């Protein structure tokens, strides 16, 4: 059985490898000069006074796709919440606090605000410099979990009312949709970037609706990552089977 499977894998893998190599040899040469879509995207972005072309592609030219991406994230978090909920045969045992060396604790508590500010900075400058809602949101959510590293799970739970983050997540997704619908009401198209003035190039308020959509994505990702990590932490640290023995033995 096992040997048969390996043989099958070897045959399939060799075939796939041959096809992939053939495809690679036929691709346009690495580093080539012809990027028609890229050049047009850059022009469109500059026309709308957005310094970061990638943000322009994500939140203006392909804003509808980003809505899909957000719904995937939202649905995945929902799925994780359902899969990792506490079932009837499990109980919660509050974990005993871990003993953290003082320098580590100090470092975690000092870096936490720095990381939060960095996250907000990355979100706010999304349409100017590299970064954006997604990157900043993950950083902000990770920053919060420094409390778990610096202190213990109890401390994290106290500053993390989960309902608030779940609501933030949902609100952010709906605000993205509302921003899209606003374009429709204004007589153009869903998520069209024609509502707001484009502003001065390379300033925080430039780019019409892009900064707003960016902020919505940032909020959503921060909320989603926090909720996700909360459920995994609950499972790993707090929730136990009825049959499970006391931890730490």
């Amino acid at each position, binding site marked *: 059985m096992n040997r048969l*499977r*390996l043989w099958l*894998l070897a045959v399939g*893998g060799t075939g*796939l*490898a041959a096809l*992939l*190599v053939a*495809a*690679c*040899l036929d*691709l*346009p*040469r*690495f*580093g*080539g*000069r012809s*990027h028609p*879509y*890229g050049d047009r*995207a*850059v022009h469109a*972005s*500059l026309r709308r006074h957005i*310094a*970061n*072309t*990638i943000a*322009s*592609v*994500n939140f203006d030219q*392909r804003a509808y*796709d*980003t809505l899909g*991406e957000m719904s*995937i*994230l939202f649905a*995945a*978090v929902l*799925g*994780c919440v359902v*899969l*990792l909920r506490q*079932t009837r045969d499990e109980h919660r045992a509050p974990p005993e606090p871990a003993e953290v060396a003082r320098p580590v604790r100090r470092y975690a508590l000092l870096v936490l605000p720095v990381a939060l500010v960095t996250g907000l900075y990355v979100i706010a*400058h999304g349409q*100017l*410099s*590299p970064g*954006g809602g*997604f990157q900043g949101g993950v950083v902000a959510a990770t920053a919060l979990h420094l409390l778990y590293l610096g202190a213990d799970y109890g401390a994290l739970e106290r500053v993390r009312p989960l309902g608030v983050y779940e609501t933030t997540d949902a609100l952010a997704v709906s605000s993205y949709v509302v921003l899209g619908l606003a374009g429709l009401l204004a007589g153009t198209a869903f998520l069209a970037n024609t509502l707001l003035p484009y502003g001065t*190039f*390379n300033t925080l308020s430039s780019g019409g609706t892009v900064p707003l959509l960016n902020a919505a994505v940032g909020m959503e*990702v921060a909320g989603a990552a926090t909720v*996700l990590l909360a*459920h*995994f932490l609950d*499972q790993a640290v707090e929730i136990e*089977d009825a049959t499970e023995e006391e931890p730490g033995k």
Partner: protein
Amino acid sequence: MSHAMDVLPYLVAAYVFLTGCYGLATSRHLIHAVGCLAVCQSATYILLLAVGYRAGGTAPVFSDIEPGSRPVVDPVVQALTLTDIVVGATVTALLLALVLQIAKRHGTVDPDELRELRG
């Protein structure tokens, strides 16, 4: 050298993808399999960005350079890759949640043992 350079990034992407597939097929632990899937996903990032690269180009971000002063790489594939990474992370999270659920239901995380359980 320059001729090999024309396809090397694509070949690396293909190699990474195949390595991930090998790991997936021979995995003895479901969490390990999820990690191998993450390796497969990273192959797609490499491929997309390699397609969009332009020799001597720089990032199409104009906060610190004058627009038009330097050639830029393709922003469209970068935006695609960004979406790809987000979706990849959510897939990893969802699969890990499923693995925990399987461990809870069947008491094992070895795919072969799971097959025997089903009979």
